[in-house]
C-alpha cells in the first residue's frame, strides 16, 4: 500500500454515477486536502448526497475511481473504510444508550474495554454532553442527538468525516450554535470533512473550500471568497447571494477596466480580470449588497462609478439590512440591499443606485 503523505485525503477521478438513465454525478474530478473542510453546495437533486455516499461506500460509482490517502477504494466494503458519517436525521440507535451508541464503532475496532470507556467519555465531553451516557436517544433534544451522532463519528478517529445536511433538521437558533460547534470541533481535531448542504450561509461560513454543483456537474470549486466574489458562471453567481445580471456589449478597454454598452442604452464600467474585445456579448454581475443607494440629488460625478437612476417599487425590512427593488426607466428592475442607515428610503421615492467598477464583474454571455 503506497500511502505517501502528499496524497490528498480524498480524490475523485472522473467519477460518474448513473441510476438507470438518470445521471446523478457527471465526470467529477475533485481533491480534498488533508484536514480541510470541503462543502458540496447546490440545489436539491444536484447529486451532493450521491457523491458523499460514494465516498462512504453506500453507492458504487458507475465510472471513475475514488481514492482515500492515495489508495483506490472502489472495491473496499463500507465497514473497512474508516469513515465517520453524520446523517440528517441523526440515525442514533434507538434501542441503545448514548454510551453504547458512541462506543459502537470502537466495539468493532476491537478496542479494549477500559480504553473504550475513556474514549467515549472524552468524546461526550467534547460535544458538551458529559454524564449523558445512560440515557436513551429518545430522551435527548434534536440538537443533543446530533451532538451524540457527532461524538459517535469522531470517536473512531475517522479519516474523513462525512456529513449530509446535518443541521437541516434543527431550528434556526440551534442551527447557528451547532454550526459553530462543528466548525470548532473540526478545527480542533483537524479531521478532513466533507459536508453537504444546500444552505449557502452554512457553506460560506464553515468551509475551506466550496464545490458548487448543478445537475451532477461541478460548476466551480474554490474558497468561499472565490466562489462568492469571483463566481465562475451565471449559475454560481445566481445561486450564491443576490445578484443582478445586466446584459450588454463590450465597447472597449479603459485602463484595467472594460466599458460595456448595456441593452437598455446605458453604459457600465466593470473591472475585468480577462481581456475583452469590442463587440463581445457579456453579462455584468453586480451583487445586491454592493450598491450604494442615494437620493437623486446627490449623484456622484466620479468616472469609475456606475449609476442607475430609478424609482423604488418594493422595499422590505430584513433586520440587518433593507432590500430595495428599483425600477429603471426602461422598466428593468435592480435588486439592491443596503445596511440600515440614517434614513431608509420609502417606496415610490426616486433614487440613484451607485456601484464602483471594481464591484462589477463580466461573464461571457452564452
Amino acid at each position, binding site marked *: 500500500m503506497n500511502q505517501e503523505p502528499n496524497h490528498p485525503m480524498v480524490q475523485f477521478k472522473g467519477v460518474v454515477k448513473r441510476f438507470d438513465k438518470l445521471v446523478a454525478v457527471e465526470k467529477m474530478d475533485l481533491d480534498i486536502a488533508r484536514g480541510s473542510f470541503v462543502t458540496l453546495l447546490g440545489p436539491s437533486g444536484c447529486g451532493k448526497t450521491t457523491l458523499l455516499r460514494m465516498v*462512504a*461506500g*453506500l453507492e458504487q460509482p458507475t465510472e471513475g475511481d475514488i481514492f482515500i490517502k492515495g489508495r483506490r477504494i472502489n472495491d473496499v*466494503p*463500507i*465497514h473497512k*473504510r474508516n*469513515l*465517520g*458519517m453524520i*446523517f440528517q*436525521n441523526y*440515525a*442514533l*440507535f*434507538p*434501542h441503545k444508550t448514548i454510551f453504547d451508541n458512541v462506543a*459502537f*464503532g470502537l*466495539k*468493532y*475496532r476491537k478496542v479494549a474495554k477500559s480504553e473504550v470507556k475513556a474514549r467515549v467519555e472524552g468524546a461526550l465531553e467534547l460535544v458538551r454532553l458529559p454524564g449523558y451516557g445512560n440515557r*436513551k436517544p*429518545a430522551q435527548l433534544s434534536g440538537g443533543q442527538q446530533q451532538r451524540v451522532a457527532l461524538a*459517535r463519528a469522531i470517536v*473512531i478517529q475517522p479519516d474523513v468525516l*462525512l456529513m449530509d445536511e446535518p443541521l437541516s433538521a434543527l431550528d434556526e437558533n440551534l442551527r447557528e450554535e451547532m454550526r459553530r460547534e462543528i466548525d470548532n470541533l473540526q478545527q480542533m481535531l483537524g479531521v478532513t470533512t466533507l459536508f453537504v448542504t444546500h444552505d449557502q450561509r452554512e457553506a460560506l461560513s464553515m468551509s475551506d473550500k466550496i464545490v458548487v454543483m448543478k445537475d451532477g456537474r461541478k460548476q466551480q470549486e474554490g474558497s468561499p471568497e472565490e466562489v462568492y466574489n469571483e463566481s465562475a458562471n451565471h449559475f454560481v453567481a445566481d445561486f450564491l447571494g443576490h445578484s443582478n445580471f445586466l446584459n450588454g456589449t463590450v465597447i472597449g478597454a479603459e485602463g484595467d477596466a472594460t466599458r460595456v454598452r448595456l441593452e437598455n442604452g446605458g453604459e457600465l464600467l466593470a473591472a475585468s480580470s480577462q481581456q475583452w474585445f469590442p463587440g463581445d456579448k457579456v453579462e455584468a454581475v453586480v451583487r445586491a449588497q454592493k450598491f450604494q443607494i442615494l437620493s437623486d440629488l446627490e449623484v456622484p460625478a466620479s468616472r469609475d462609478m456606475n449609476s442607475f437612476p430609478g424609482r423604488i417599487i418594493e422595499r422590505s425590512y430584513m433586520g440587518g439590512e433593507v432590500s430595495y427593488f428599483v425600477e429603471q426607466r426602461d422598466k428593468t428592475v435592480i435588486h439592491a440591499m443596503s445596511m440600515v442607515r440614517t434614513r431608509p428610503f420609502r417606496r415610490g421615492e426616486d433614487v440613484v443606485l451607485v456601484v464602483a467598477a471594481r464591484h462589477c464583474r463580466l461573464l461571457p454571455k452564452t
Partner: protein
Amino acid sequence: MQKSSWRPWALLAPSLTAVFLLLLVPLCFIVVYSFWLRAPTGADIAAFQLGNYKKFAADFFYPSILLRTIRVAFETVVLCLLMGYIPAYFFYRSKTRHKSVLLLLIMIPFWISFIIRTLSWINILGDTGLINHVLVRVGIISEPLNMLYNEGAVLMGLIQYLLPFMILNVYVSLEGIDKSLLEAARSLGCTEWQAFREVTLPLSLPGVSAGCLLVFVLTSGTYLPPMILGGPRNEMIANLIFKRVIGTLDWPFGSAISVVLLTLLIIIIYTYNRYLGINQIFKSLQ
C-alpha cells in the same frame, strides 16, 4: 371544551355498540351459561353452581387436552417465527418495485376457504395422496407412509393458516426501521450480518412479539386443523368445546371449558406483556 367532550364518544358510538352487542354480550352469556345445570331432557336449568368446572378438573383428561393445546400453540409459534422471519426479511430487502405483489402473494391463501385449504393436505399427505402415490410409483417405498393424523400434520395445517400473520407482522416492523440506522452501523465497522444483529433484529422485535402473540392466540382457539388432519390423540381444547356444544349439546359444560380457556389466555397474555412486553419494547423505541 364542553362541546368537544361528548363528540369522540358520539363518533365511537357505532363501533362501541357493535363491540358491546357482538362481543361482550355473548361473552357474558357464556360466562352465565357455564354455571347452569344441564337437564337430561328439555331446556337447561338456570342455576349458580360450579359443577361444570368441577367436572373439568375431576380427572386429568380435560386439563391434559388444555396442556396439549398450549404446547401445540407454542410449537406453532416457534415454527411460524422461524419460517416467517426469513420471507419477511427477504421482502424487506428486496429491491423490486413490486413489493406489493409479493405481499399480495402472501394474502392469496386467504381467498380460498380455510376448510378447503386444510382438506387439501389429505390429497397431498394421505395414503393415496400425491407424495405416497409418487413414492410408491417410483418404487422407493412399497407401502404408503403414514403422514396424516398425527401432530406433525396438525402443525402443518396450523402453520399454513397462521404463517401469513407472522410474515405480515414482522414485515411491517422491518419496513419501519430507518434505513440510515443500518448505514450508520455499516459505516461504523459492522459487516452486513453484524449490522443485522445489532440493528435490524432488535428493532424488529415488536413485530416478532406481536406476531407470536397473534399466532399463539389463534392457535389456541382453532379446531379445524386438528379435526381434519389430527387423530384422536391430537385433539385440542377447541375440538373439545366443539364436541360438547355441537355434538352432545352440553352448552353449560362447553361454556365452562371456554371460560377456562379464556382465563388461561388472559393470564398468559398479561404475563407476556409484563415481561416480554410489547409495550416495553415500544417504549424503548420512542
